[in-house]
């Protein structure tokens, strides 16, 4: 599951969580703004073939939370 999340982050945000996961905080890095967030959500939904709840989309404010949230859909 983690590998799949990492792959999406690398593709959409451009940072490999395996190397630098602490940087991955929503709206604190240039590559993760609101537009990128929706692209990230779309890519995660595509990867996990699911549809996230609105609360989960809003809660996904950093990489660790993304892992926790996506574990529900894996």
């Amino acid at each position: 599951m983690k590998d799949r999340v990492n792959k999406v982050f690398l593709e959409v945000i451009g940072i490999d969580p395996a190397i630098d996961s602490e940087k991955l905080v929503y709206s604190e890095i240039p590559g993760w703004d609101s537009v990128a967030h929706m692209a990230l959500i779309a890519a995660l939904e595509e990867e996990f073939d699911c549809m996230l709840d609105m609360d989960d989309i809003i809660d996904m404010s950093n990489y660790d939370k993304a892992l926790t949230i996506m574990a529900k859909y894996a």
Partner: protein
Amino acid sequence: MPDAVSLAGRLAVVTGASRGIGAAVAETYAAHGANLILSAMSNTAAVECLGEELSGRYGVSVDVATGDIAHPATASALAKLAFSKYRRLDIWVNNAGVLIDGLIGMIPDADIDKTLATNLAGVVHGIQAAARLMQRAKAGSIINVASIIGRFGNVGQVVYGASKAGVIGATLSAAKELAPSNIRVNAIAPGFIDTDMVRKLPAEKYGERMRSIGMARIGTPQDIANAALFLASDLSTYVTGQTLGVDGGMVI
């Protein structure tokens, strides 16, 4: 040349589909090959009956759901149904709405809340739900049913006018935000249309409205459905952020 009006194989969600404009849009889309998810607030029997009729007549798949579009969960459930059954969403028509007139100083708070929650917040819920699925395919058309009242205003319709003007504003902003994803967002602003809503008007008011229409006839739900077909189809692939008045030259 391929048939640019065809919606064959596409999936359309239509809210407020049990009657009037919503039902006409649903039938027009079905006639052009679209599969449908139809939503109605409470008139389950009517929308189920329509769904069966359209499915039988046009050979398309029709799902039906009920729920109050003022609640975010309703739009979310419609999108989830689209995802779970079709894995796609091509067209979303935010048509559900209420019309409650009231003169300034005599408008109950409950009417303000209900009108804004249904007509405006309901559209925003729909846009959010639709955009998420459409962003995957980098394609889609969202059509919001506004009103001539939202463009020009009218006596006794401060709240309704505000809600429909809000729909136009939401359309403009959503069109800008979603254009990079190739999702088009447009509004239709109907004039005086022959629906249950206008049949409740007093005769004097009805006559006054009729006299204000340049083409001297009341609009039909099909007039609106035809515009909705244009905006849903490949005839309008470069049209976004527009409000299309369909009002027969009505002047308020």
